[in-house]
């Protein structure tokens, strides 16, 4: 049965096994279909909430490779079904085709889930940090994801323009007071307020500012709300 389940020992899977240096026995479970797809999901799930771990292109390609193998194996078997006149073995072949098909669907589902959930986390960056991706996060994204982020940014901006420029990313918390005490966490420099006054935000200084003006600075980590 294992021969039936196991993927072809291709280049990619050998590389994958070699990294498991602490086991000198290859556990049979490692040879199962869908294993790498599960790793993909698990890696994302283990990362801290809302953080974006580096894009795992290698595993994505390995999973695609597995899908390709399955696809080819199934095509071969379908060919065998059609060419063989002897129907006694058909049942077995049909079962393995069905089994592989399910494994393939599962792999595809994991791929979609992986990319979708990353996009979801990317979305929260737009809402919390604004339309520009910080450099350290940018390096963890794939090219396609950067594209997606930029177009999401445009769509959201367009939508807010339709609302006469109501900025939906401000007012994320119910306003309980107009002014709040804030402490500056880093040397930000000059900041111009809505009524045109300029204030100098120097590290370790404290200010009393209108909540709406400093909400985004708090989310960016420039200011800290001090509860007096």
């Amino acid at each position, binding site marked *: 049965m294992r021969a039936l389940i196991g993927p072809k020992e291709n280049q990619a899977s050998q590389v994958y096994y070699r990294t498991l240096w602490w086991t000198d026995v290859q556990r049979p479970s490692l040879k199962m279909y869908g294993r790498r797809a599960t790793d993909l999901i698990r890696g994302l799930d283990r990362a801290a909430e809302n953080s974006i771990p580096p894009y795992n292109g290698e595993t*994505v390609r390995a999973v695609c490779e597995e899908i390709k193998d399955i696809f080819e194996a199934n095509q071969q078997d379908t060919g065998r079904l059609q060419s063989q006149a002897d129907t006694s073995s058909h049942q077995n072949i049909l079962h393995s085709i069905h089994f592989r098909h399910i494994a393939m*669907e599962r792999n595809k589902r994991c791929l979609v889930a992986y990319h979708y959930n990353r996009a979801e986390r990317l979305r929260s960056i737009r809402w919390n940090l604004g339309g520009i991706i910080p450099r350290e996060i940018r390096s963890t994204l794939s090219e396609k*994801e950067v594209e997606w982020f930029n177009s999401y940014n445009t769509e959201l901006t367009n939508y807010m323009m339709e609302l006469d420029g109501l900025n939906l990313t401000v007012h*994320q918390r*119910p306003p309980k007071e107009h002014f709040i005490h804030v402490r500056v966490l880093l040397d930000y420099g000059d900041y111009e307020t809505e009524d045109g006054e300029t204030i100098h935000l120097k590290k370790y200084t404290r200010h009393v500012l209108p909540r709406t003006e400093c909400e985004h600075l708090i989310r960016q980590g420039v200011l800290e709300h001090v509860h007096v």
Partner: protein
Amino acid sequence: MDGNDLETQPEDLNTSNTSETTTMQLLAELKDIWRNERFAPELLPHHVDLVDCLLEQVRVMEGNVGKARGKEPYRCHVHKMELNRIRFMLSNYLRCRLEKLELFTTHYRQLSAEQQEHFLSPAELTFLNNFADKTDELLTNSVAPYLPTGMPVLDAWKKNPARPKLDSFVFVQPKEVLEGVILDAGTQDGREEEIVTLEEGGQYLLRYSSVREHVMANRVLLM
């Protein structure tokens, strides 16, 4: 600008602008709609007129407060505070709708054009279509180059998209007497349907599906 203009400002919040409905009434309406939107598992019909009207009013009032700045700083701040609260309600309401759209993108995309028009404002519809296209593109293009040519990636995803859970429970407070509310309609576990009357102002814990049409018609409050 003299003190009299400031005096009239509190009335700006109350006096009517164009029609017979006052801003105060609009606000009360927004509050109900906003609360229902927050607690309902699915998107409720849009109220684009109300939102536009209130946005307009907020802008006018902000202009008034801005002009009066420097005369009576304390009163200005109180007015600003109030305006911020309105802005919060508006943006929270719209944000909540966007979140639902993003969560159930495929589901809302698959609705008929009429239904889409009923639930979504034109701007939301544009957003939904673009967002859905871009997301599908991301999901497909990230893996398609490595797969056998022509293999569909999103077939299963499209066939069974995430849908709002209409069976979830909600706390309900009717604004009027509701007769003939059917409980447990179409449940699988063999319980019988039950028809009840909900009293005005009473508080009930029901499945969302049994009061769905009343929520849409704004006859109940969710809480």
